[in-house]
Each structure stands twice: as structure tokens, then as C-alpha cells.
């Protein structure tokens, strides 16, 4: 009996071919497989039943494993997977919240996005133990979330993060009225990543092939987004260690990058750039030449500032050994993306699930030996900025070969292929953005599932601040720079 099917990124999957197995079987399989989950979500399956879909990523072979299990209308619980594979913890919490099927013996079965007033915080007892509550509204101009620190004096024993304030019901809205504009507003700092994932899902469901030129422009825009946000984050980290020179210089350098994006598509954050069927804007040669010039300047500015900072002992003493997450813990809790890479977990879906351009343009994965602290997250950003700048330059040079190709596919139809599922993974600057869509036998979209990298990584921030001074929290937080709205949806 087939227990799993092997599928690929951005490929149509026939829903009727997805196996249905017993939940207890699935649990033992998941444990034996030793692969990480990227999807674990339910869908109503008629007559009060719920079908649970599980997607595991085999990053070494660019494969995805997909299976499912059906809960009858009288089954309201199952033995939790988290006990065996901790990385499932947040997925099982979400599934419980959305469908009311309880993962038994889950170690921390708490709300993800709703019922915050009933949130059961961890409690610690002791004469000198005290709690510090922060949020939902924070001191800076950032999104809302509640943090609860269990402290002994200045030292944080544990941080609990309660989110959900940003919940807008995006997954339901995607079923009613999906659009590129909605997709790019889900998480406004990863506009290109979200919009590309959404567009790839729709293109697969509508059987549209986009031009090589459009593929390259999307790829370039994604790297531009990475460069801009990473530079902004270097500035924010500098600000949080009171190195204001860094904050000013990186802030100004970021402006150069996003203004280049504005020249390309009319929006500093890349809104309206990507669309189903291709891209909306075709950067002229003049704009491309100017972009290359700007990026060269950006590269010099960032180099100069980072090197100055890394030579400065007061800077280094704040970055090193602050907010460390060990490799072992990162693997256990299933960190993804940039945060995982800083701990030595080599996950990067640009290379794990490569498109044809990775080989053609000669992009290679370069790993760094990093220790999972703020310093690691600082240096990794620096490295990725340099790499992305060289990627963008290569892509821009390649674009000239496809001058006469269209940027948008002709005659885009509005019919979705029935009985299908599509999984689309895009490596945004934080990590993998996963969009999954399903259609029914009439070609109507019936489920839209989104997984932001922050969904996995918030717990990592909780671990990072353990045994650090509470005053280092802003620094740890900024070094992760996780998304509230990507998590809350």
C-alpha cells in the first residue's frame, strides 16, 4: 500500500492520488522518516469529517512527501506527533485551533491566533522570580504582539510569545476573492516572496507558463527585497546596540536599494511588480544600468560600515554570545530560513528546491560556520547582501538576452484545474514562504494554506533569550526580525 506520494515544488498534484492512511500509521512513519514538516493542515471533508494533510520536505533531494488521514466526525483526538518530533508543535497547535481535534499529550497546547484572553502562560515559582509583560503595543513602530518574560533579577529564564493580534482571516479571504494585491498585503515586508508564491500557485492551477524574462525579473526582485531588508536589519541591530552611526548609514543605504525597486516597478517595496502570468513592469536598459551602478555603491557602503563595526570591540562585545540558539535546538524545534542557517542548519529553498536558473547562472550555496548568536545573524546578513548583489547583477546581465520576450503571458484564463493541489515554496529573506492551494471537482478553490517562516521561528526567539539579560531582548528580537502578520495571517 502506498503510504506517501513523492511530489515536486510548483507542480499540480491530483488530489485523488493522495493516500489516506491511519493517523497512528502516519505518526510512526513521520518519526521514522526524520524529515521536517512544511505543511500540516486540515480541511473539512464532508459529513463532519476532517482530512489532515501532511507534507514533509526532503531538502537533500528536492522532494516533498505528501499523505493524509481522515478523522471521522466522532474522532476528536489523536496522539500528538510533537512528543516524537518537536518541530510539529506549532503545526499541531494550529490544527487544533482550526478544527478542534486535540493532539493528546501535546506539551504546550496553547492558542496560536485566537482566544488570547484565555492564554495559559507558563508559570514559575520562586522568591525572586517575577514576570514582565510587554505589548501588544510596543515602544517602536512595529507590529503588535505580547511578550511575557519570566525573570530572575535581570536574567530571563523563559520568554513566552503570545501572538494573534494581527489575525485578519487571510486564508478564508483567499478563497473568496484571491488577488495579487491581497497576497502582497499578507506580509508587507516580503511582498515579492508572497506574491511570487501566490502567482506560482495560480499559474500551476491555470496551466500558465511564464516567459523566461518574467522568471528572471521575479528572481531579481526577490533578491532586491532580500538586500533591502537585510540592510535595514543591520541598521536596526546597530540601533539596538546604540551604535547610531551604523543605524544612519544602513538606513540611508537601504533607501538607495528600495528607490531602485521604485524605479523598476513604481513601489519602494515592490508592490504591483509580480502578477499571475508574469510581471507587470519591464525595467528599461537605462534603469538596469542605473541599478547596477547603485548596487556597486551599496556594496561599497555596506562593506565599509560592516568592517568598521566588526573591528570595534564595543560592538563585538554586544553581538557575540548574545541570544544563542544551539544547532541541536534549532534542528529540534524546526527553525527554517536565515535563522536556521545562522545555527548551522543548512536550509535554503533557493538551493534545496532549485529552479533551472540556479544552474544556468551558476549560483552556488556557500555555507558559513556560525554559532547561532546575534553576531551570526549579523554576519549572515552581511554575507547574503553581498551574494544577492552579485546575483542581481548576473540576472540583470542575463535579462538583456531576452529583450524581446513578453513579460506577461497572453490570454490568461480564469479557470482552475479541478481536483488539484499545488505546493509552492519561495525563499523570502526570512526563509521559506509556503503557499498551498486545493481545488474541488468543479475547479473551485476550497483551501488556501500559508506558512510563513516566522511560524516556525518564533519559538526560536523564545529559546534565544533564555539566560540573557532582559535588556538584550530588543537586540535578540531585531536580529531575528520575525513577522507578526505572517504568523497571524
Amino acid at each position, binding site marked *: 500500500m502506498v503510504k506517501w506520494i513523492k511530489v515536486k515544488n510548483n507542480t499540480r498534484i491530483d488530489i485523488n492520488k493522495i493516500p489516506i492512511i491511519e493517523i497512528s500509521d502516519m505518526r510512526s512513519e513521520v518519526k521514522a522518516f526524520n524529515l521536517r514538516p512544511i505543511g500540516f493542515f486540515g480541511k473539512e471533508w464532508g459529513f463532519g469529517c476532517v482530512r489532515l494533510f501532511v507534507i514533509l520536505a526532503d531538502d537533500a533531494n528536492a522532494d516533498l512527501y505528501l499523505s493524509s488521514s481522515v478523522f471521522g466526525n466522532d474522532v476528536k483526538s489523536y496522539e500528538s506527533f510533537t512528543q516524537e518530533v518537536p518541530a510539529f508543535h506549532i503545526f499541531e497547535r494550529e490544527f487544533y485551533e482550526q478544527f478542534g481535534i486535540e493532539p493528546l499529550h501535546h506539551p504546550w497546547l496553547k492558542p496560536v491566533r485566537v482566544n488570547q484572553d484565555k492564554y495559559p502562560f507558563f508559570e514559575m515559582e520562586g522568591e525572586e522570580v517575577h514576570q514582565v509583560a510587554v505589548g501588544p503595543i510596543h515602544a517602536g513602530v512595529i507590529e503588535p504582539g505580547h511578550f511575557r518574560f519570566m525573570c530572575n533579577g535581570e536574567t530571563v529564564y523563559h520568554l513566552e510569545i503570545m501572538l494573534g493580534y*494581527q*489575525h485578519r482571516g487571510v486564508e478564508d479571504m483567499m478563497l473568496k476573492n484571491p488577488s495579487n494585491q491581497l497576497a502582497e*498585503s499578507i506580509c508587507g*515586508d516580503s511582498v515579492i516572496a508572497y506574491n511570487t508564491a501566490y502567482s506560482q500557485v495560480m499559474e500551476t492551477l491555470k496551466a500558465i507558463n511564464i516567459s523566461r524574462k518574467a522568471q528572471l525579473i521575479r528572481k531579481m526582485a526577490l533578491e532586491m527585497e532580500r538586500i533591502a531588508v537585510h540592510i535595514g536589519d543591520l541598521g536596526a541591530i546597530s540601533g539596538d546596540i546604540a551604535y547610531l552611526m551604523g543605524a*544612519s548609514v544602513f538606513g540611508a543605504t537601504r*533607501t538607495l536599494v528600495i528607490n531602485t525597486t521604485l524605479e523598476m*516597478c513604481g513601489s519602494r517595496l515592490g508592490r*504591483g511588480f509580480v502578477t499571475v502570468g508574469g510581471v507587470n513592469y519591464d525595467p528599461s536598459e537605462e534603469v538596469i544600468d542605473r541599478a547596477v551602478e547603485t548596487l556597486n555603491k551599496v556594496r561599497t557602503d555596506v562593506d565599509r560600515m560592516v568592517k568598521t563595526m566588526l573591528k570595534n570591540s564595543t560592538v563585538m562585545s554586544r553581538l557575540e554570545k548574545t541570544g544563542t540558539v544551539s544547532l541541536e535546538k534549532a534542528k529540534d524545534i524546526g527553525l527554517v530560513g536565515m535563522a536556521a542557517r545562522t545555527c548551522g542548519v543548512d536550509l535554503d529553498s533557493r538551493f534545496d528546491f532549485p529552479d533551472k536558473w540556479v544552474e544556468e547562472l551558476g549560483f552556488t550555496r556557500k555555507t558559513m560556520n556560525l554559532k547561532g548568536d546575534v553576531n551570526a545573524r549579523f554576519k549572515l546578513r552581511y554575507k547574503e547582501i553581498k551574494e544577492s548583489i552579485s546575483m542581481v547583477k548576473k540576472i540583470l546581465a542575463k535579462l538583456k538576452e531576452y529583450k524581446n520576450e513578453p513579460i506577461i503571458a497572453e490570454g490568461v484564463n480564469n479557470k482552475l484545474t479541478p481536483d488539484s493541489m499545488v505546493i509552492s515554496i519561495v525563499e523570502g529573506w526570512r526563509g521559506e514562504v509556503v503557499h498551498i492551494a486545493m481545488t474541488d471537482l468543479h475547479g473551485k478553490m476550497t483551501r488556501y494554506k500559508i506558512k510563513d517562516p516566522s511560524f516556525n521561528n518564533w519559538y526560536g526567539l523564545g529559546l534565544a533569550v533564555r539566560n540573557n539579560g532582559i535588556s538584550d531582548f530588543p537586540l535578540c528580537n531585531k536580529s531575528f526580525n520575525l513577522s507578526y502578520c505572517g504568523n497571524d495571517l
Partner: protein
Amino acid sequence: MFDTLKSRIYQGSQFIKDIENAPMREQFRGFPKFNAGEDFSACKDVCPTGALSLEPLSIDMGKCTFCGACERVCKGIELTNGYKLASSSREKLVITPEVDYENYLKSAVEVREEIHKIFGRSIKFRQVSAGGCNGCEMELNACSNVNFDMGRYGIEFVASPRHADGIVITGPITENMAYALEDCYKSVPDPKVVVLCGACAISGGVFQESEKLNREFLEKYPIDLYIPGCPTHPLTFINAVLSFIKK
């Protein structure tokens, strides 16, 4: 230290000197312009937020995300690089073919003597993101960077509502943030102002149809300034506040 100084000298000065007349790149999508005599029927149904109406012909900048979908399919509409989009009245955000940019600027933000008297030299805001996607938040942060440097006009974001003269709301106001938002508003000492920043805050934007919003706050309390955009450009924001507090 010498390296730091060298970096400083190398950077030079980068602030925008005349922020009220700062040039904007022509690619920017801002104030809408209607070209009379064109056929507008192709624009029907392309607007993702219902900002564009054909009968009568108008674009509601309070709903518009400036995505450019309408101008791409129809020659009759052009989103110009006019970036001073703010208004003190919700109705004025609805732009019809009769309203051109020059005229809009003259009357969009009502000059109030008492506002100038109290806040003319300094206005401090507490920012509340209530479901904001981090787009407007990032742009509001950019307002304080070395390029835009709105601090020089006495405009600043402060850490506590107790220190603030008003609040700037971004995001469509989710149910889960409704209480915190109202709490924050109540904590700001009187007299205070409320600014809505971005399409989501003004109208719900792309999230208008969401069932998880609670926008009662906007019915309960007076709104002083509407600043369109998706996200709001720093120049749009700073100029909006400047025109609000001027004489």
C-alpha cells in the same frame, strides 16, 4: 574611532533639503488623473478594492492601493507621481475628473488655527499597528531616517501614548487589536489627534471584506487626518503632517 569618522565623512550629507518640494520619481503611482474622452469600460472589475467607480467616474484614494491595475488596462486613467495625497476629510479623498492635483492641494487639508497653535512647532505621535502588514510601519520608520529626517520639523514617534499628542493608526483594525487601540487612545492626554495612515486604516483596503475586523473605534472617535497609500510613502506622510500643523 578613526574608521567611524572616516565612514561619517564618506557618507556626507544626504538629507532632502526642501521636503515640501522634494522631487518624486516619475514611476511612482500617486494622485489619479482622468483623461477625458477615453473609453473607461476596460477598467470595470479590475480594481481589487472597489476604489474605482465608473458611475460616476471616480477613484476613492481611501480605498486605492495604487496597484496600477486600472491604468494598465485603460488609457483614461493615469496614476501620476503626485505624492501629496492627504486630506482632513474622508469625502475629499474621492477624486473625480473635475478635481485636479493643484486644486486638491489647495483644499485637501483644512488649516485649523487651534491645531497650529498647539502643535505647530512640535507634534509627537504614538503609532499603533492594528493589523498592519509592516508595509506602512516600515515606511513610517523610514520617515525618521537620515534622508527624510522628519524630526527636524518636530514630528516624532514616541514610545508611550502618555508622551504623545496623537496616534497614527495603520492596518485595517483587527478584532484582536480593537481593545488595545482604544486603550492606547484613551491614554493619550487631551487635546489629541487621530491620523489614519494607509488604505487599510482608512477603509479596510484589501481587507474590507474580512470578518476578523472591528472598526468601531473609527465611529466612536473623530479622525483628523487621512493619509492614503499602500504603503504610505514617507514624503506623503511628512507633507501630510506638515500641512496639518501649518498656519
